[in-house]
């Protein structure tokens, strides 16, 4: 009986080892992929970043739909462009869209494609809060957080050379955009999110908005129930609100951003009321 069991175990292992047959794949090419693609992404030009960003933005447009109300879209773009006029990366064009979903979130694709969801827009009370949220996203683009994440991801590099090794034609942009789409869904690093909070708060203040706009919007969301299904992805992709509020308070204090700028609640309501 022991012999029978032994045969059974050996047979089981042999059968399952077939499942990992690499079909003659050149493993050395696969292993070298990470380093090669890291170099490629390190030299990603603005033009290439915009191409990747377009793919990501078109994906978000397909998955959620875009709000096409001309007045609302123009207003969000005016606030966004006012923010951009004070940022450190003005060479690329920026586009601000509203995603047609009740989910509460905002996203920055590479290359200047920035989105806020209708759900988040509905929770905001004035223009300084909208500017704070958009300034947070603009900071992600200015500091090239997604490009940095692509550069650090060895898996994408392995995938690139995997394609070469198997003779399949998988474009580099497709690899980068797939990675970026998943990254936006799973969240950037905690450090990058906090960096965007800090940069966004200062940026909105430089435009002349109340520097506490972003802080108030985060505080309001923190007061909502954590179990709120509409906040699912927001909670998943951002650090805890308590950490964010602490960092923003520190930023306000260190940069002496105590002067109250513009809140513009009337203009906000006039432009976004349905």
């Amino acid at each position, binding site marked *: 009986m022991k012999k029978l069991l032994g045969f059974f175990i050996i047979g089981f292992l042999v059968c399952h080892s077939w499942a990992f047959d690499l079909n003659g794949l050149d493993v050395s090419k696969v292993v070298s992929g990470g380093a090669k693609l890291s170099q490629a992404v390190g030299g990603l030009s603005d033009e290439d970043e915009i191409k990747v960003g377009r793919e990501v*933005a078109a994906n978000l447009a*397909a998955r*959620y*739909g875009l709000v096409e109300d001309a007045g609302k879209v123009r207003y969000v773009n*005016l606030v966004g462009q006012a923010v951009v006029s004070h940022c450190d990366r003005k060479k690329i064009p920026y586009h601000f869209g509203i*995603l047609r*979903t009740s*989910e509460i979130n905002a996203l920055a694709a590479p290359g200047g494609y920035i989105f806020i969801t209708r759900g988040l827009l509905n929770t905001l009370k004035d223009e300084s809060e909208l500017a704070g949220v958009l300034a947070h996203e603009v900071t992600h683009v200015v500091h090239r957080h997604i490009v940095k994440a692509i550069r650090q991801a060895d898996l994408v590099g392995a995938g690139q050379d995997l394609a070469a090794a198997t003779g399949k034609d998988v474009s580099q942009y497709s690899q980068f955009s797939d990675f970026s789409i998943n990254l936006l869904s799973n969240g950037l690093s905690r450090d990058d999110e906090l960096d965007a909070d800090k940069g966004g708060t200062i940026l909105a203040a430089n*435009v002349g908005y109340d520097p506490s706009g972003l802080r108030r919007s985060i505080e309001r969301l923190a007061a909502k129930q954590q179990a709120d299904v509409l906040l699912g992805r927001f909670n998943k992709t951002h650090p805890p609100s308590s950490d964010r509020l602490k960092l923003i308070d520190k930023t306000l204090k260190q940069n002496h951003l105590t002067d109250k700028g513009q809140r513009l609640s009337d*203009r906000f309501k006039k432009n976004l009321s349905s």
Partner: protein
Amino acid sequence: MRTANRLKLRSARSVQISKAVGISLLMLSSVSLADDAPAKHKHKLTLQDLVNNAAGSRPEATSVAGVRGLEETNGAVDTKARDFAALERLEHVVVHGDELEKFIEDGKLH
């Protein structure tokens, strides 16, 4: 008597082990058969179905987008979907310099 009992116990154990091996082999073969068989489309009731059933209507873009986003929260993201036509309409929204200046001035911004 003891010897007879031992023999009975041994034979009972052998039967149990044989049954276990037999069941395992059957399970393995069914797994491999399932791997070979073409995947059949199973209709899973989604939030979108519930919305459509409730409304008694065909899916529309608005509800699809909203519900799809929520469904994705805990599921896999469709990385292949693209809507370049909608994106191009957004890209055509251009804010001109004078319009931005007036917007900034009206809001007493910098």
